[in-house]
């Protein structure tokens, strides 16, 4: 009988974290900002059909970076979770907090028990009636859950982008202003031209389903500037 090769837990976690981080570092970043009109999600995305942001429920949106098949399966699981909960109870009972916590539990489990960790970071955003009620949650590959205020970023350059956003983000900007300052931060952090934008807004006012994609016209100004 051969004894299983002993690996110290510290080493195991370190190896897995390094593996996941390498995968994520290749991914392009996504920023989320609380603005007067709602919550803005902005990503660099050359593709017009393979999106990184998605509607989850009435006031809740999802964004994911990393390996496409992995964040896509998380997105689908998130929509299933939300729709089942809303159907079983009521539409108001679906909250970003419980969803983010479910993402956190799931990613945490996969990190420790799965054959390999997911190479993803996800963001769960919820728009409130007032800016004070907005929610931004960030969940990393190992299931760590962060509760962010005002602005945040995920992806390869998440920390740099987030720091850069912090320099310009003051009070609560309007949508146009926020788009300009985020696009600027992207360019400075990446140090190059950006190939294609994907933008989405969770509107503060309107019909029950608040998620909408920003049109080419709305993104037009930042695309050319």
């Amino acid at each position, binding site marked *: 009988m051969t004894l299983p090769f002993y690996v110290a837990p510290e080493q195991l976690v370190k190896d897995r974290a390094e593996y996941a981080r390498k995968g994520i570092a290749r991914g392009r970043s996504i920023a989320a900002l609380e603005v007067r009109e709602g919550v803005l999600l902005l990503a660099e995305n050359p593709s017009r059909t393979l*999106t990184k942001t*998605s*509607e*989850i429920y009435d006031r809740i949106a999802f964004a994911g970076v990393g390996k496409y098949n992995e964040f896509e*399966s*998380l997105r*689908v*699981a*998130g*929509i*299933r*979770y939300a*729709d*089942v909960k*809303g*159907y*079983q109870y009521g539409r108001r009972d679906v909250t970003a907090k*419980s969803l983010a*916590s*479910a*993402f956190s*539990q*799931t990613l945490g*489990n996969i990190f420790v028990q799965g054959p390999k960790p997911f190479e993803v970071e996800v963001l769960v955003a919820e728009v409130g009636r007032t800016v004070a009620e907005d929610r931004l949650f960030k969940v990393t590959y190992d299931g760590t859950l962060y509760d962010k205020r005002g602005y945040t970023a995920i992806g390869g350059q998440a920390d740099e982008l987030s720091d850069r956003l912090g320099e310009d983000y003051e009070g609560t900007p309007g949508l146009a202003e926020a788009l300009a300052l985020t696009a600027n931060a992207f360019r400075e952090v990446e140090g190059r031209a950006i190939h294609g934008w994907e933008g989405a807004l969770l509107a503060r006012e309107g019909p029950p*389903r608040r998620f909408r994609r920003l049109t080419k016209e709305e993104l037009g100004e930042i695309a050319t500037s």
Partner: protein
Amino acid sequence: MTGSLLPLGEPMPGASFTELIRSLDLAPEWTLGTDAVPPSFHPPDATTVLALRYDGGVVMVGDRQATAGYDIAHRYIQKVFAADSYSAVAISGTAGLGVELIRLFQTELEHYEKLEGVRLSLDGKATYLARMVRSQLPMALQGFVVVPLFCGIEPENGTGHVFTFDAVGGRYEERDFGAAGSGSREARAYLRTVYSPEFDRTAAIDHSVAALVAAAGQDLATGGPDLRRGIYPNVVTVTTEGLQEVDHASVVAAAERALEVVR
């Protein structure tokens, strides 16, 4: 769904919400024994609903009354619902089953749209609804029949469509108008004599409310507009602008005109 974990490892039932809740054992189920239903048991029935095509869209109207035998069970029930932003659905038959069927249908359409990133085609929605009705067949044989009515537009070309169904899940596209429920015969008879495909929005609303008044005039179970209690039909239109509930003042005006015209 197990605790606070996401349904990642669960069976993946494609984009269908009904299959998803079935795999989680959460699907609504009404199972009956082989014994007949006791004759004293009358769950409320929802009565007349109708929809008609006009130049630019479709209009759908439903009365507000539910009956249980000879008793009025509810006076203010809603039978016309938004299925999604470009289609409307209404129920007739056993109200409790119908309302649940619609809730499931609405969730189904939204679920599909979010997962796939595009809306189902109008034809696809009607086919799905027919399948849902068919799955209720055992209940229908026990006397709990649900017959929906469906209408909407294809946003790309703006033409309206009306679909009627039967208890076995038959799906029929109507050329001009469709109706379901106990007063539907009267409503159709009225519409046959006045209908024109050139109706504008106002004419379409007026005539569909009048058809409902005609149905209420003959059918005991259908509740016409009740000016004294302030009960008016639910009226929605679907155009390229999307589904809109017709404002209260217009419905009141249409109901008052209809009560003068229909004897």
